[in-house]
């Protein structure tokens, strides 16, 4: 069935930080900001989605209630770290199918300190898959395995990964919503505490709390509110591919999903002017830019090293600091990416604004075992 593009009418987010705000307070702040940004009211929203991973049952419903949004279906949506973008994808598919005109999507998470738990509580340790019971696969481990393979096959170096981290922290220093706006030198990044070789601490996204919200609507409905709409024109969700020869531990088949999303939007990687991608750990930038088609396979390291992903580069990547500097409230991150692309396309990104016109962008939001690619245009 053909899918139709939808409009990103409004976005809003809280600052990402370590604090005592509860999920409803954060969701309310981001949701209100998105409604105001869109120029709509609670009564205009016909469907609601909430991305969250480890919060209470009913979190989304509590947030929508706090926003005064009544009598509509609200659904919580969990795809690990890709929850919020999947919520937006669901909303887009329903709007596209004519099931509603306008939807609000909220992503929210309060994060504990330390390694993101892969398994939550441990009811029956003895029954765990062995690799989990051993602790063989903390989250940085999956990226580390992909990174080490990339190094062995393509000559990528730790310096390449550190460069991606250094750029992320530098971009984040220009973003008032980033949790960790500090700038680090290459030496500081490479000499920071080893986590899962070759990944060091400053190549890791930190845990913090935050919320982001997005109002999506049909192109017809958008005409009431704006003459300059930003479209979500292509999207595709995915799970990992199977390749016996090359069993890369990718969360989803980004290359396949990107081809689908670009095709739906009628665009290609060469048309993109901004990219937000899932650098839960800095090697992610190098791995994902190849799959999104910005450089040939294996050349991501030199591509980043040469500055092509800088704000002033060929394809600016993670202009707001990405997960590494903004931090990673896991159920919220995908909509933070949507917001940044929207701000860049509107030309309102302040000190981190891309200096050339931004009329198209792409995001890749990856969660454990699934992810989404989305393409935007003006």
């Amino acid at each position, binding site marked *: 069935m053909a899918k139709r593009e939808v409009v990103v009418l409004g976005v809003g987010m809280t600052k990402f930080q370590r604090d005592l705000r509860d999920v409803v307070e954060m969701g309310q702040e981001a949701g209100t900001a998105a409604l105001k940004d869109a120029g709509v009211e609670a009564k205009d929203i016909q469907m609601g989605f909430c991305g969250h991973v480890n919060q209470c049952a009913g979190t989304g419903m509590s947030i929508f209630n706090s926003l005064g949004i009544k009598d509509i279906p609200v659904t919580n949506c969990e795809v690990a770290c890709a929850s919020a973008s999947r919520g937006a994808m669901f909303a887009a598919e329903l709007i596209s199918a004519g099931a509603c005109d306008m939807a609000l999507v909220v992503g929210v998470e309060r994060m504990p300190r330390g*390694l993101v*738990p*892969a*398994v939550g509580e*441990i009811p029956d*340790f*003895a029954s765990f*898959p*062995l*690799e*989990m*019971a*051993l*602790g*063989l*696969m*903390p989250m*940085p*481990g999956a990226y*580390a*395995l*992909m*990174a*080490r*393979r990339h*190094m*062995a*096959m393509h000559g990528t170096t730790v310096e390449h990964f550190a460069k991606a981290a250094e750029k992320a922290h530098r971009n984040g220093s220009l973003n008032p919503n980033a949790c960790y706006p500090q700038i680090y030198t290459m030496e500081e990044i490479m000499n920071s*505490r*080893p*986590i*899962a*070789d*070759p*990944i060091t601490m400053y190549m890791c996204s930190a845990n913090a709390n935050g919320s982001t919200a997005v109002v999506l609507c049909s192109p017809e409905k958008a005409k009431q509110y704006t003459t300059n709409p930003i479209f979500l024109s292509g999207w595709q969700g995915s799970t990992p591919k*199977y390749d*016996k*020869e090359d*069993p890369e*531990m990718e969360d989803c088949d980004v290359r396949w999903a990107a081809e689908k999303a670009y095709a739906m939007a009628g665009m290609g990687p060469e048309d993109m002017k901004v990219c937000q991608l899932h650098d839960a750990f800095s090697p992610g930038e190098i791995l994902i830019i190849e799959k999104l088609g910005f450089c040939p396979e294996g050349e991501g390291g030199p591509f980043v090293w040469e500055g092509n992903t800088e704000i002033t580069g060929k394809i600016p990547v993670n202009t707001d600091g990405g997960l590494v500097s903004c931090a990673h409230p896991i159920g919220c991150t995908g909509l933070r990416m949507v917001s940044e692309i929207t701000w860049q396309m509107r030309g309102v990104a302040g000190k981190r604004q891309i200096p050339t016109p931004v009329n198209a962008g792409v995001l890749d939001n990856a969660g454990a075992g699934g992810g989404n690619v989305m393409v935007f245009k003006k």
Partner: protein
Amino acid sequence: MTADENKEKKKVSARPQHFSVPETPDGEYRLIGTQCKKCGDSFYPPRVVCANCGAMEMDSVTLSDKGVVYSYTIVYNTYPMMLLASKVPFISAQIQLMPEKAWLLAWLRYCDIDKVKVGMEVELTPFTFSEDPETIQLGPAFRPVDRSVWTGKGGD
């Protein structure tokens, strides 16, 4: 040492459905997986639906006890409640069994962390998953075939 402690404990598998522990000292440890009747691809641990072609007819098979390191990481920080948390840094390796190319994630034991490499040949070796006064539960791990990269005496 008391007579009790001296007693040979019974060795059993922590995951009997896909790892077999020999009943005699000269027997061998085995990985048990499945092979698709339609396309021939093999999997560990056993799958009932083929990841390649989607067929649901699978044979139970004994897999190779040798493989190569597809990739690896040296883990410095893992979940504190997990078995290897006290053994950091340790090597976590993604291993392709050869020749089947079924792959698994395993603890690469005994290997010098400065000498681990993508493509390194490895072989099956057991580790102690848990222990009580009567039994030792064992699980599958791997070690380098080349003993020159082993640490110390090849022990923990």
